[in-house]
């Protein structure tokens, strides 16, 4: 059995988080979410299960929309998008997401691009996966400086979507909206609970000895390294090449 790259574990985890979706939308510059979605699609196809639709925003190749840039939001509002990914310059323990900046708005000290569609999509996409590789106290803060999209809403607020999980380079968290707060579900190979606690600016629940994130079996890995990287290459050529290079450098056990 071959060794597994950290990014391969992330991609396979994303595929697992998407289990059961019919339609997933991913951002233009989100190769790992796209890879996870493509991996799940390939796995479903192998067993003859219902097909999964993947919309990659800004891609001419994987764009199923024909009504301009409003269609993604309309489609989500109609309940036709089951899963979406959000990053965030800051994410806090209530799953609030900040895409705008650090410091007092509008004259922030650090400024990120902006909220994009998050202030809407977070409310209407049932399974929003928070995905941020950098796992550090400057990203995972006690309280965000600006709420681009809130993790939870009061009961009287119409909301059909929200945070489902938080995936980082170190671990995987589930979100409990009743509490509200995150629970550490698993720690990626090579990391541990103390490290995650030190790198996380908010409190979270966890087992005394949390499990290790599952690594993919050989079949899943073969699919990812073969067909999925081929498919990925059309839209994310640089990322696919990097994955192949890193994969080739792995020692075979």
């Amino acid at each position, binding site marked *: 059995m071959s060794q597994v790259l950290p990014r391969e574990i992330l991609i396979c985890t994303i595929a697992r988080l998407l289990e059961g979706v019919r339609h997933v939308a991913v951002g233009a510059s989100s190769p790992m979410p796209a890879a996870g979605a493509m991996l799940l699609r390939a796995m479903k196809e192998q067993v003859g299960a219902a097909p999964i639709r993947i919309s990659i925003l800004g891609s001419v190749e994987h764009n199923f929309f024909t*009504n301009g840039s409003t269609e993604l939001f309309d489609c989500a509002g109609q309940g036709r998008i089951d899963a979406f990914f959000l990053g965030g310059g800051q994410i806090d323990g209530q799953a609030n997401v900040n895409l705008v900046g650090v410091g007092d708005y509008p004259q922030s000290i650090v400024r990120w*691009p902006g909220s*994009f569609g998050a202030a*809407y999509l977070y409310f209407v996409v049932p399974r929003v996966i928070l995905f941020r590789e950098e796992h550090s106290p400057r990203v995972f803060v006690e309280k965000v400086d600006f709420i681009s999209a*809130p993790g939870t809403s009061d009961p009287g607020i*119409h909301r059909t979507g929200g945070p489902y999980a938080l995936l980082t380079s170190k671990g995987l968290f589930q979100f409990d909206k009743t509490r509200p707060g995150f629970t550490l579900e698993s720690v990626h190979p090579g990391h541990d609970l103390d490290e995650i606690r030190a790198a996380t600016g908010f409190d979270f629940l966890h087992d005394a000895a949390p499990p290790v994130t599952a690594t993919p079996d050989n079949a899943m890995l073969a699919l990812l390294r073969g067909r999925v990287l081929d498919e990925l290459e059309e839209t994310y050529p640089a990322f696919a090449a990097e994955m192949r290079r890193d994969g080739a450098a792995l020692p075979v056990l």
Partner: protein
Amino acid sequence: MLSNPRALAGAITSGMRVALPVDYAGVSMAMTRPMIDHGAGDLDLVCVPTGGLQVDQLIGAGLVRSVETSAMSLGEAGGAPHFNHAVKEGAILVKGATCPAIHAGLMAAQKGSPFVPMRGLIGTDVLHHRADWRIIDNPFADGGDPIVLIPAIKPDVAIFHAAMADKHGNVWIGRRRELAAMAYASTTTLVTVERIVEGSLLADEMTAAGTLPALYVTAIALAPKGAWPYGLWGEYAPDTPELLLYGKAARTAEGFADYMATQQAETVK
């Protein structure tokens, strides 16, 4: 109706509200330099729904009073340096939005309605900073159910670049229908195109399906490669090295001036 980019820029007057498209949908970069040379300032820009290179250059040239946008970046080339600087200095007013709210405002204008409702937003700081938006209780619910109302966005002028137009003034926008939405909502619409085709784009149902009728188009100018260094959907890809070049150059006033001077040599007709 056929004109050139400099004449088109002449139709812009100070204080106008100007709608500009997202980077991949057909930015008329060919209009940027003529707009700067023309010099109409105090512009209120509406990014549909996000902004980048063109907006940054217009800010750098001192023509911008406010920007309504849901995001601003140069993509792989990072943050928009003049935008970020102007925001930090308080030199421009930012009306922070979220993509569907900008589409909603244009839709209200398209329908001749004063507003449209939009889900989401409640509890965000985006909403918190928009005193011009309203919240009402959904009149179709049994009490409660707050919902945000977005007022109509009615730009004075929409400016974009498209693949082709005919001599009657019809413009082929393909599936980039946000360009039609911009034109419907705006008083005037200025368009640069890659090429002018013979015949009428409305004469054939296949081309008609992707055509913005002349009814909504004020003037058209020929500008081959007019979205460069951005790409044009279905036509050519963005020139990422050039965007990186700008992103680096525009970090200083001198770098920006040098960059723009070089561009001028290329774009002056």
